[in-house]
């Protein structure tokens, strides 16, 4: 959707092979074949696919540039570019402190962002429920790249130490019942009371849609940048499309 509107604003058109599952895999066609065919119809391909590495495969078989809009539990680079852009609108990224909050195990936006931030000498703080912490393989990778990672149990511990608070959704289905979900979710909720202890220039980001993670009263706070972040999605995707087609 967001890539389609980005393309429209650039004055182009888009074709959507909306459900690859329905139209080709069901017929037994490989992704490689689908990509070979589609690359004859378009100047660029944007792919979102349930298998990890699908975008790399597509790039091998396409005659036109390929943009990865999310592959399985893998990377989500377009979201990460707009996250970085939103942070940079407020501050220099080099050497800042960023807290990732919420489901850090399954949240691929958090994984992609953490990898990107490791290029900027950022110190990473993590606040997540037990069992939903960053995968250890990713922690190893990031540490090897020289990133300092600090785990916190409590949001109040981290709030005064960071420049960016990146909040991700905690999904209800990760919990056995709704009571335990509400207990956990409420202790990771961003409220105006929590933000009293924040640095003045702290910004709060969220890849949206949110459920209970951010109190709606925070929306009016000068810290809230998640709607701006969401709006940045279109110009950042326009830039990506332009860049690959030039």
């Amino acid at each position, binding site marked *: 959707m967001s890539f389609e509107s980005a393309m429209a604003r650039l004055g182009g058109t888009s074709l959507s092979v909306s459900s690859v599952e329905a139209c080709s895999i069901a017929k037994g066609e*490989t*992704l*490689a074949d689908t990509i070979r065919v589609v690359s004859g119809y378009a100047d660029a391909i944007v792919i979102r696919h349930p298998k*990890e590495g699908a975008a*790399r495969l597509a790039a091998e078989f396409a005659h036109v540039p390929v943009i990865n809009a999310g592959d*399985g539990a893998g990377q989500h680079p377009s979201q990460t570019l707009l996250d970085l852009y939103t942070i940079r609108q407020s501050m220099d990224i080099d050497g800042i402190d960023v807290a990732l909050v919420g489901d850090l195990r399954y949240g691929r936006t958090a994984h992609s962002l953490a990898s990107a931030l490791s290029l900027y000498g950022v110190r990473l703080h993590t606040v997540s429920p037990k069992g939903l912490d960053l995968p250890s393989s990713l922690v190893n*990778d990031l540490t090897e790249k020289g990133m300092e990672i600090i785990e916190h149990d409590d949001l109040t511990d981290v709030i005064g130490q960071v420049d960016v608070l990146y909040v991700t959704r905690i999904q209800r289905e990760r919990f056995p019942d709704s009571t335990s979900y509400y207990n956990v979710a409420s202790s990771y909720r961003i409220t105006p009371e929590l933000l009293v202890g924040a640095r003045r220039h702290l910004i709060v980001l969220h890849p949206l849609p949110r459920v209970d993670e951010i109190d709606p009263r925070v929306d009016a706070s000068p810290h809230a940048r998640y709607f701006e972040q969401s709006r940045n999605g279109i110009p950042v995707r326009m830039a990506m499309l332009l860049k690959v087609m030039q």
Partner: protein
Amino acid sequence: MRSSPTPEDVAKEGLLISRIKNGTVIDHINGGEALNVMKILGITGSTTESLSIATNVPSRNMGKKDIVKLSNRELSKTEVDRIALISPKATINIVRNFKVCEKKGVEIPILIEGSVRCPNPGCISNTNEPIKSRFAVLPEGKGLRCLYCESVIKKDLTSHII
């Protein structure tokens, strides 16, 4: 290059393994890995050629090493590359008419294609797509990284070899 075993060799291996007329001697295999080398060579069940294996032979440089001698067989580059993955110190001796006529070490490749299966079930390389699996060999024995999904295989490499 030498044509006959030294007394030291005989003392060490002479009783364990007889010499072969034509074929390949894979020496300096990491101790205990000989059966995995066999697996790489596809020798799992019956074979008509003569074959000797010695495991955990004392070695001055390696502590313990394994040796595999295969009659009437020379190895392909792919096979040698796979052996390098599990035994980077291995040496390949090609024997013709009881003489070692070529002796070379193995080299760990930078890129491994088609020999290793990605452990990630969600990886595109584990589907029916017309591609070979592809892994980058990480420096300092840190394992292999899938070039599709970026999963890393750190240990127990042999169980992933196809």
